[in-house]
């Protein structure tokens, strides 16, 4: 199952996600984030706008590869991959 790792900044809003390994079923980025949202309701609102597109200053990568489809999040997260959630330097 893929693992999800995120910037510590998000623990401020979702402390229940801290100090735990987050795994989800493999699938598209949208499906993985949806699974995290079920663990922490409201989580995806911090990453995605109301159209489901990735917010401008948020980046995702699947292992070392930056997610390409920022609009519908169709990139595939394979079984043994890690999805990283981090802040884009453009927002800092």
């Amino acid at each position, binding site marked *: 199952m893929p693992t999800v790792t995120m910037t510590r900044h998000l623990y401020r809003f979702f402390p229940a996600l801290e100090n735990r390994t987050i795994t989800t079923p493999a699938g598209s980025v949208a499906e993985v984030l949806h699974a995290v949202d079920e663990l922490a309701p409201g989580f995806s*609102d911090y990453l995605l706008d109301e159209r489901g597109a990735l917010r401008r200053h*948020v980046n995702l990568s699947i292992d070392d590869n930056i997610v390409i489809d920022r609009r519908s999040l169709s990139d595939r997260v394979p079984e043994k991959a890690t999805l990283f959630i981090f802040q884009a330097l453009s*927002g*800092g």
Partner: protein
Amino acid sequence: MSNMILLGTRKGTVIFDRVDSSWRPRPIEHAGIPVCYAARDPRDGTLWASLDHGHWGPKLSRSRDGGATWQDLSSLKYPEGARHIVQMLPTPDFDPAAPTGQPEYKDAAVYKIWNITFGPAGQPGRIYAGTIPGGLFVSDDGGDTWTLNRPLWSHSSRGGDLFAGPATSDNQWGGTPASIDYGVFEPGIHSIVIDPRDPMHMHIAVSSAGVLESTDGGQTWSPRNRGVLNDYLPNPEAEWGHDPHFITACPAQPDHLWQQNHCGVFYSKDGAQTWQKVSQPEAGVHFGFPIAVDEQDGRTAWVVPARADMARMAIGGGLFVARTSDGGQSWQAFREGLPQQNAYDIVLRHSLDVAGDCLCFGSTTGNVYLSEDRGETWQCLGNNFPPVYSVRFG
């Protein structure tokens, strides 16, 4: 008499309490998060802050225990199908020959929740919010759920009902520079005025479009910009294209409205049916962002003038507040207690407020000043706050 002041700042929410006769700031809330607006609902004491996260999107934050704990809400969203016509960013790259003449559409998403306005006592739970890109939202359950005002969103001045299909009219709303931080150039609703005599009657102000009025609870909207002169347009009396920086109305005399506009100070004593320019440039009263009106006397208002408009800082290095008590025919400048040398402050549109005889304002330089004698003398509440985006008495 108000006993609380809320600041929305670049680094969080600052709350002052009046303790005995002095104002004491609490430790900052939402530390590190930009807060573009903070206010207290006088009906039930709920505190509100509009969080302007750089990374995580706009959120409202609500405290129902006087600020001890806060709950962040993601409930204010555009509905599926809400679209707007994209405004072109005014950059040197813009090629006016490039567009085909067809409008470009974009699915709407909230960039900024710029204003929170509370409904009347008779409508508990009713709250309004104005956004970039130009949405008026209404909640009737204290902010748990929000509804976009569709008649305004689909107004003919914005291209008509884009939920239904392509534009059926020209878009007349321009962008606000306040949107450029989000990489777009879209309009914003920063002022919402509810008539205390009739909650179906309201005015809003849009940068950059102008003032609109509804007399039927938001079902229909009409422009109310007659008399507003727009120096930067070929036709200064154009119906649209105005840049009100802030509008406000006298609670006891709601037909008296005031507008600090990009192009001067304007006053209306007929419910915004007509506006009269009451700037007095020789007295420094012309450009600025905020404006406040007395709670009882609709002819009395205050502004914090600034150097227009490319400079946007205090005039001559000295801060002052100007007051009129005769509907803008004359203005009196008050400087006592305010810095008169090396001051470069600018006071943004939501950063001046009045409550009874008290006024307070804050600047983007992090200075906060309070007057308890109707603006005549001032005391400093601190010089080292983060840039101030809003000041509201609680």
